[in-house]
């Protein structure tokens, strides 16, 4: 799947033109083109938001902080990831005793060998969406990367 196709999947959160505009500088400075994109989703007042994107190439990870002011992004050597940590759980939004919504959550930490650095990704959504997000992540960054 091309980067373009992967970005199109995020148009629920960002208009594609805006997203492309935001990624212009991170892509320009990236020494090699990314093969995959993993979004990090969080809960906000009105629903879900994508606050960060991880662009993954053969040798680099680029973390783009979409909502940051000033706009920020950084690169790190993919080979420095030596631990892959998963946390999966559910959270129920209630009004009194009434359940309004159940969210399936995930937090994944890629722990780097450098100075305790951690690339942290999160997900909030339905069970099916979480499975799809996890599958995309594993495809983009296989657990074997840590070997």
């Amino acid at each position, binding site marked *: 799947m091309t980067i373009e196709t992967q970005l199109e999947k995020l148009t629920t959160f960002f208009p594609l033109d805006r997203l492309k505009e935001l990624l212009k500088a991170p892509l320009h400075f990236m020494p090699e083109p990314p093969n995959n994109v993993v979004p990090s989703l969080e*809960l906000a007042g009105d629903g879900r938001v994508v606050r960060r994107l991880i662009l993954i190439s053969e040798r680099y990870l680029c973390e783009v902080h979409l909502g940051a002011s000033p706009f920020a992004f950084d690169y790190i050597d993919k080979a420095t990831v030596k631990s892959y940590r998963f946390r999966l759980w559910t*959270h129920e939004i209630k009004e009194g005793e009434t359940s309004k919504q159940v969210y399936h*959550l995930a937090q994944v930490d890629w722990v780097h060998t450098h100075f305790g650095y951690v690339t942290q990704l999160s997900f909030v959504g339905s069970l099916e969406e979480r499975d799809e997000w996890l599958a995309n992540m594993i495809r983009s960054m296989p657990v074997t990367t840590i070997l």
Partner: protein
Amino acid sequence: MAKSAKEDLLQIIASKRDELRLPGYWENLAENCHSWAGELSAGPFWRRAESDLSQWRTEYLNATGAILLGSSELPPFASKSRAGIQDKICRNWKRIPEFHDRLFSPSGPPIPNLSDLVRTRLTCPYIDGVQFLANKVESLAKECGVLISRIPQGNLQGYFAQHIGIRQSVFFRLAGHATAAEIECEIQIATTLATRMWDASHPVYETTREEEIDSHDWQWDPNNPRFISNQLGHMLHLADGLLVQLRASLRKQSKS
């Protein structure tokens, strides 16, 4: 991003409420606080204070011959940032064991029990204006049924201000759901000198208040920034008092 001791502590604090583990909880809390600050600034209590202000100014002018407030209107309320909320929670968690149980109520929306998530500061040129204005704001808060507390602050570190706590009904918004809640907001009233002192010395206070500092560490060390800032705080409080005395004696002289 490098994991810090603060993040480790926040993980421990998250045992108090599951919601703290939600991705985006802190950012969302800060965004809620920002909305509440806007609502309180435009709300009936602050509008009423705004409309009573001209009467308060006149009353104070007649009594002292001086102006009550440095600004032409009341400042809006401001909210604490995400980092500011986290820092204050971590600081109190380390220093005050009782804080652990009162930080969150077990039910209702997950809003930390801090008195200044939303706050504003009123700056008076004269120290008796602080007392006068605090009396007026306190009475108004009582009349409107929103008063929680009035605390005249004065400490060894040279911080002098009057803090009035008021309650505000809010909606905590998360994932498209809004839950009604009540928060405490803070109105700080201080002199222009004390406010300048606070603004100037805040970085010193921020960098050192993480640690428990014995007053002996700075009270006998003139090179310690706390020595300067803390003593200067007391000196300016004295200067504020002397200014009022000077103003009163000049007024007496001009009348005779």
